[in-house]
């Protein structure tokens, strides 16, 4: 049965959707930023470590979809890694809860330089609906410096892909 399926899949061709060009404006802005910071380039492949700093798990659901056959993140040189020590990019979701603040700082500290921090979702940008709570410190930038934000509640996989591909583009210039 497995072999039948494999044969059929091979005949049918990939399910992955073709991708257009990366978002030029964002890539340009990020490249400028890299240049201004004279940050070492990372090349055209980036390792991503996702950190949930207080999310409702909605953002994670959509980030998960990037690994599906439809989006196939790895074809762009992007892949998720299990440890911050192997990462170039921290993908942070949620408002930063006071109970996750230290863990986020330590994860950031464990990520080797040069590194990018991407704040994913409205909560990560400024705390979102949880703004003003006694239990949060704010958006991702209340704990660590942020390089790129991706809006949405949650952002769609297409929006996530756009943001991440501009990072790869900026790095390749």
């Amino acid at each position, binding site marked *: 049965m497995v072999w039948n*399926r494999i044969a059929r899949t091979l005949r049918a061709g990939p399910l992955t959707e073709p991708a257009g060009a990366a978002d030029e404006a964002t890539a340009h802005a990020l490249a400028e930023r890299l240049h201004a910071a004279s940050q070492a380039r990372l090349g055209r492949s980036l390792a991503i470590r996702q950190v*949930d700093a207080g*999310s409702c798990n*909605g953002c994670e659901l959509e980030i998960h979809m990037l690994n599906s*056959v439809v989006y196939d993140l790895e074809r762009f040189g992007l892949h998720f890694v*299990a440890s911050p020590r192997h990462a170039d990019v921290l993908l942070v979701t949620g408002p930063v809860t006071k109970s996750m603040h230290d863990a986020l700082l330590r994860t950031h500290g464990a990520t080797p330089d040069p590194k990018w921090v991407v704040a994913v979702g409205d909560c990560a940008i400024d705390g979102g*609906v*949880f703004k003003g709570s006694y239990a949060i410190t704010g958006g991702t930038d209340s704990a660590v410096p942020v390089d790129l934000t991706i809006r949405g509640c949650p952002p*769609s996989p297409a929006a996530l892909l756009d943001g991440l591909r501009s990072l790869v583009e900026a790095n390749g210039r």
Partner: protein
Amino acid sequence: MTAAEIIRAAPTTPCHPWPRHVLPGQSWQAMADALAADPLALLALWADAGHVHALFRDGADILPASTAIVGGAYPALSPHRPAAAWFERAIRDLWGHQAAGGTDSRPWLDHGKWGQTAPLSTRPAAASGAAEPPEFLPVEGEDIHQIPVGPVHAGIIEPGHFRFHAQGETVVRLEVRLGYLHKGTLALMRGKSPRAAARFAARLSGDSTVAHSIAFARAAEAATATDPPPRAHALRGVMAEIERIANHLGDCGAIVNDAAFPMLQARFTWHREAVLRATARAFGNRLMMDAVIPGGVAADITAEGPPAILAALAAIEAEHGELARLAEDTSSLVDRLVSTGTLSAALAARFAAGGVVGRAAGQPGDLRVAPGYPPYRTLDVRPALLTEGDVDARFRVRMAEITESIRLLRALLASLPDGPVSITLPMASAEGIGWAEGFRGDIWHWLRLDGGLIAAAFPRDPSWLHWPLLESAVRGNIVADFPLVNKSFNGSYSGVDL
């Protein structure tokens, strides 16, 4: 007297649809003692400034019960209902009430970082001193080693700490420590109109945004004696079944992937994406965040919605049998799933486990059937039921529920009533309970309105009762099987961290 009789003998205060029994301290203590020999199911335990509240299920009847806090304390339920322990710890951390005689007095949600204690009490105090390192239960025996994991995990997953005590490869004890995602949601809901507070209910656990929004809306509607229009009920049903299918597809994929069978996962996630795209076309949002509001739904389904949803369902149905057979016929997969992470029916019953976790271990509960709610009353929902209680059973219950939800969705879409999709809630000072069967299981919301604004609220995600059962189910398994067992439970972290 049985615990239920003791509760029923107490005077009631209005709460819709079930009056709340207010027990004098002695009766509460007598009820707590009677729970030792009584099968009465504890669904939730929470508090407000002056009372502690419990929600019980007695057969088909739901019994809310309360007692006043005296001298900052109330008699604990945990000695006879282990499921009460997490609630009692949360009540202490949020409202400052002590569970007298409780089995566990360690902090739960409060990690010492809020700068205050008992944030929901009438007078939160400034926190004194630095946070203590968490204490874990001791394990005795030879060659026991500890494995600390988290709060930041290796995958794309919510944060929490798992403390394993292992003997060689075998898990002797797992202790789950959560609370990292505490966002102060209950405090944010207070003082808001149900319409404004619905945004927080929708974000308790993003994967259950529809189900939590429905349960919350129904609590507000019960309190204000409002019945949304029939079309709103039907559309809520459509959204809830889509959410169930999408999550079950994701979970089935995650389970087989953790057993190293990514080919099957690829198909599950492909279908999940198709469902989410159809949903975006039908409701303008892939996860349907904020689509359900108190009084109905935020917007009507688009004209292209139903055909898009039906097309996605047809594609799932066409492949469902083959995917199920592929899972059953692949011995390397069966080997990993069968008899792994077994939960006994007795323990599932003792914890009143609902949802997939309960239904895979012989517990037939499903809120769509009993107590029931629209639009399911006329649909004759047939929940799946298995007794094995292992990872395989939880996988198969999800597979069966996908089929059943496809049937329900077709029936709902074929007969959408005409008319408006929402009505405005009147201002009221009253209490209500709402419920909905999410993809994880039974969701309960309680709230009290004062002059149309939320004075107090409590949402109970099914995970409150599932997490402690995960601790039990993983015992005796090898450490390497933990991710698999964990995925098969798929507890919500955010949903219980509040």
